[in-house]
């Protein structure tokens, strides 16, 4: 960095400075009460019966992603994975009101990797975010018997839907959701809600139709959340992985910071308000995140309209969407008649939305390489699983392919399971079988290899891995 060059300037005499100071003193005024009310509101109780807790944190104004990330860097060891996850979560929040397929995100990472902290930070904003750790379902047919009981004679709506309308639902511990006996019902109702309409009828003569329900869902948890995919209800979600495995060096570095923080925090006393439950730097980062959510939601419609997505970006989104559609396809648990995969239309739409919303979150005017890198990362996170592992191994062997037994050995899976998957992949035209010629007139054992169109798609998504 260059040393600042010094310029010679004439000095103003002291007498003139004193006169200027006199003018300055006249400008010193007590701060207006309105400035102080903001924090007073933060410390006041907010128990108005809408289910929000007493100690709420106030959002701090923030309209720059850089400023937001700087505050997070001060608060904790900020890894690329956390940065990626926060940007994707904010993109989902920003997309809530935009017309089209909604951006529902599963945020996946090992325990204690920072998922809950990010969720709590986004949940600081109560205006646009609804945080619920457990839910029993989106609908409720509950009906009070009489108006005296306060229910208006069965007219009061106890469903979750009116509360989440136009908001982002944040479930910070999705693993507990998996244990819910209502899981299938919750996912089925969510699937119904995805296209913004939902109609129900109950046996107590209650019936409720909802339309125009725009909501986004951030579902966080460990890799167990991937089980939702295999239930054929998970294809509304895109995945975002915070941390692949646990990197030893990174873990040591984080642990060192955590130890120091724990040591420091013993000297801090928590109060009744939510902000004092965290150390000051973390509380500020969370409050700024809440403020940034407000900025995104208030400006989304105008700003998203101004963000350009070049044709190359659109093309890339179509390739990524198709790739995800192939890679997350699984044999059905419920029927064996037909093997099918989802059509990539929704995925393409979601990837395009994600690209534009990410550009908005990152304060960019167009979808550039950096944004597309993040979109691709989400696509690859969503594609993970046995299908991708099989495809990757087969892609690595090119035209030669692999025998099912060898593949099972490479994947450390049971032979029968791998054969089932290979048959399924063959049915959806991901793989094909051929018998190599061993010698004249003698053919070897059947082998599987990727179909040429899948190999081409693979090369487009992983350009460096062309064999």
């Amino acid at each position: 960095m260059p040393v600042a060059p010094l310029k010679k300037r004439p000095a103003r005499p002291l007498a003139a400075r004193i006169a200027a100071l006199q003018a300055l003193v006249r400008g010193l005024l007590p701060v207006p009460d309105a400035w102080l009310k903001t924090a007073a509101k933060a410390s006041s109780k907010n128990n108005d019966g809408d289910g929000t807790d007493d100690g709420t944190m106030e959002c701090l104004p923030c309209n720059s992603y850089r400023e937001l990330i700087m505050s997070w860097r001060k608060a904790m060891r900020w890894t690329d994975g956390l940065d990626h996850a926060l940007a994707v979560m904010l993109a989902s929040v920003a997309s809530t009101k935009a017309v089209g397929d909604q951006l529902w995100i599963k945020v996946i990472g090992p325990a204690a990797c920072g998922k809950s902290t990010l969720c709590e930070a986004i949940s600081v904003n109560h205006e646009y975010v609804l945080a619920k750790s457990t839910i029993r379902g989106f609908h409720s047919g509950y009906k009070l018997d009489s108006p005296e009981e306060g229910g208006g004679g069965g007219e009061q709506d106890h469903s979750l839907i009116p509360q989440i309308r136009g908001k982002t639902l944040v479930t910070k511990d999705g693993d507990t959701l998996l244990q819910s006996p209502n899981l299938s019902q919750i996912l089925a109702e969510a699937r119904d809600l995805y296209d913004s309409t939902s109609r129900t009828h109950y046996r107590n003569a209650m019936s409720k139709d909802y339309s125009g329900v725009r909501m986004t869902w951030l579902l966080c948890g460990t890799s167990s959340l991937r089980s939702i995919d295999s239930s054929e209800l998970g294809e509304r979600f895109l995945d975002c992985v915070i941390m692949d495995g646990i990197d030893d060096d990174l873990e040591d570095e984080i642990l060192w910071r955590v130890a120091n923080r724990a040591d420091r925090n013993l000297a801090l006393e928590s109060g009744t308000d939510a902000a004092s439950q965290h150390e000051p730097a973390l509380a500020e980062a969370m409050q700024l995140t809440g403020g940034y959510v407000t900025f995104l939601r208030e400006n989304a419609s105008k700003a998203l309209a101004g963000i350009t997505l070049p044709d190359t970006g659109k093309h890339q989104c179509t390739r990524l969407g198709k790739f995800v559609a192939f890679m997350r396809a699984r044999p059905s648990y419920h029927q064996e008649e037909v093997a099918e995969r989802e059509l990539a239309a929704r995925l393409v739409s979601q990837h395009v939305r994600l690209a534009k919303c990410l550009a908005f979150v990152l304060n960019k005017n167009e979808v550039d390489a950096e944004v597309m890198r993040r979109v691709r990362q989400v696509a690859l996170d969503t594609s993970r699983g046995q299908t991708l592992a099989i495809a990757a191994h087969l892609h690595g062997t090119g035209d030669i392919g692999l025998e099912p037994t060898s593949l099972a050995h490479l994947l450390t899976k049971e032979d029968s399971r791998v054969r089932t998957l290979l048959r399924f992949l063959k049915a959806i035209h991901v793989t094909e079988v051929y018998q190599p010629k061993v010698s004249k007139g003698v053919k070897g054992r059947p082998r599987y290899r990727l179909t040429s169109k899948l190999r081409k798609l693979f090369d487009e998504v992983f350009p460096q891995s062309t064999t």
Partner: protein
Amino acid sequence: MPSKSEIPDTIKPYLFHGVEVQYRAGEKEAVGTCPFCGAEGKFSVNVATSKCRCWVCDCGKEKGGCNAQSFLQQLWTRSDEMTATYTDLATERRLLYPDTLMAWGVCKSTVDGVWMVPGYAADGTLRQLYRWVTVKGKHKLLPTPTMGHHLHGVNLYSKQKDEVFLCEGPWDAMALWEVLCRVKMDSQGTLHETASQDHCWAATANVLAVPGCMTFFDSWLKLFRGKTVYLCYDNDHPRMNPKTERMEPPAALRGLQRAASILAHAKEPPESISYLRWGEAEQFDLQRPSGYDIRDLLTTP
């Protein structure tokens, strides 16, 4: 040569201050030239702990070793001792007296001759050294990476003084402080020049500076406990956000509101909080340029 992002945070403070240490990925120590004695290849920084040591001059030999913060303290101590003349910087910064810079701990780095401004924690310990450099043609005070932002002027702070002026940036604070040291107020509120250190305004008023208008930490609150606080931030104009095409409130106003709010809701708040209003009706004055500050007011006709 590792890229900027590959350099571990632990050695960034040393590199930022011009210490020539070579980092190679995977190695436990970054080795280079000692910034204090000049011994080549004898100064090492532990990549995991950020502790440094010179095997010639024994810097870092003391109990507990020399971490990045101790390194900043040592660098400042040696640089402060070695800085002989402040006249050039005082002239450039339009200050009346070079001694002002000395009092605020400004000094020239012994490593590469760059001017440095210290930042302090609320207890008065030196925690940060800002470097006065040119970035894209603009003078800027850049903080040592990973060491956070800290207050300026805490080294001159006295609990006995009832008033605290809080300025935006150290140069404003210095310009104000040196005038307060030479002025007293009579019963009518008129200011007069004085040479008496016991009767000048600075005898009853502290001057502190935040590194930026949006920076204010809870840990600083104890410096304002029970005091009469004057928040003197810049005259920033509202600006158009090119993204949203909406006018946004000035940064200084947002910073003022934030600082006032934190101060007012502290466990032990100040006795009163005032702010510098530049305009007739609003905090900012459109007649004056955006970014106009106390130093401009005091030092330019």
